[in-house]
């Protein structure tokens, strides 16, 4: 391993950049969808009809207790047997979103359950409909309570997206494999890409902290706390 072998790897910067873009795209879309669906699932698992609650419980337990790699393989290779064929990118997006929804649902549910029941009663005594009370009164402080846990989970999702290379989605770790087999600089290629992931994770954490301060712990949210 020498400096020149790193230069061999860095020569492939266009593919590194492409991979980076794909990783960012996968992460952002799945995080957005996962948090939205997770919130809806959390609501349904607390306020929905009984069968729906059981279904969501089972869904959450199943996806939290099976490996993500297995989930990707099942969705990409297993589902076509049922006639549900997806291209790698869609399959990866579906797998990431389904997985994150399960975790997000559990995290948000914990936040809601920690909300005093009086909040809900107060909201309904003001004449708010249950859905209004939920999304306007209950959700903002619940999100605030669980934002650190949510941040960690979203960063884990960013790193888990590396597994999408296994169904040949051309994201960062896929490009690492490609560069490794093109230049025979396996170790160097993986070092470079690992550092890129680390930088990405740090940036993403910062971004989420900023989003938290700006939108979750904003003036509106803190005003309610006083």
């Amino acid at each position, binding site marked *: 391993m020498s400096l020149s072998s790193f230069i061999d790897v860095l020569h492939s910067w266009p593919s590194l950049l492409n991979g980076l873009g794909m990783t960012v795209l996968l992460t952002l879309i799945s995080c957005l969808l996962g948090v939205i669906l997770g919130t809806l699932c959390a609501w349904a698992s607390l306020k929905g009809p009984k069968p729906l609650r059981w279904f969501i419980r089972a869904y959450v*337990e199943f996806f939290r207790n099976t490996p*993500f790699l297995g989930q990707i*393989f099942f969705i990409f290779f*297993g589902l076509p047997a049922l006639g549900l064929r997806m291209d790698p990118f869609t399959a990866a997006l579906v797998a990431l979103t389904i997985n994150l929804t399960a975790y997000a649902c559990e995290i948000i549910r914990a936040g809601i359950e920690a909300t005093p029941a009086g909040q809900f009663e107060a909201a309904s005594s003001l004449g708010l409909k249950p859905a209004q009370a939920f999304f306007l009164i209950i959700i903002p402080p619940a999100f605030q309570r669980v934002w650190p846990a949510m941040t960690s989970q979203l960063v884990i999702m960013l*790193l888990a997206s590396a597994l999408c290379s296994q169904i040949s989605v051309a994201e960062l*770790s896929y490009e690492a494999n490609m560069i490794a087999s093109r230049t025979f600089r*396996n170790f160097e290629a993986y070092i470079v890409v690992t550092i890129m992931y680390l930088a990405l994770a740090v940036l993403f954490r910062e971004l989420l902290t900023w989003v938290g301060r700006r939108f979750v712990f904003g003036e509106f949210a803190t005003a309610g706390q006083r």
Partner: protein
Amino acid sequence: MSEFSTWDVFRNLLAAVPWTIYLSLIAFAGGAVVSLILLSLRLAFPRVAGRPVHLYVQVFQGTPLLMQLFLVYFGLALMGIQTTPLLAASLCLSVYSSAYLTETWYGCVLAVPKGQWEASSSLGLPHWQQMLLIILPQALRLSVPPTVGLMVQIVKNTSLASIVGFVELTRASQIIANATFEPFLAYGAVAFIYFVICFSISLCGRHLEKRIRI
């Protein structure tokens, strides 16, 4: 070409279960040893060891396990050590788990209320006795639920060993899917087996949690 029954698929998958369990045990034991060392360093010398341990945790929590696995696999080869998938996977999973265990257990120590420190120092206990007799037993209780959660994560993460060619459950399911042309059955069955393993651990954890509630 011979036909494969559902039972054939299941039987062959079940044969791979012990390897997933061995790998999980190695990863947990290795991770626990490394993180206990790091944790005691961090608690004994907060000034000197605090930052390096924090950095270690950040690096291993901030990079994908897949990349770590490749780095260990090819790094060992670069150092002239003959790599086997089992060696690379055990080493990598141990280090990876140690980062999460260190951070979690450190959080448990911090979560012991401050009054406990003050009370024990007002009793005149020296620092190491406060730690050993007052703080750690309480931290141990607090650590049960997150540790069980991490054990489930470790079992799930052993699936990545399949990528460097170690034949555990996930690799077995790939082989079987390719041999039988029944990917739906093979991947579905393997998900079910993982679920049974992980969910039992989660249930044991919940049971334990109820029993030791403070």
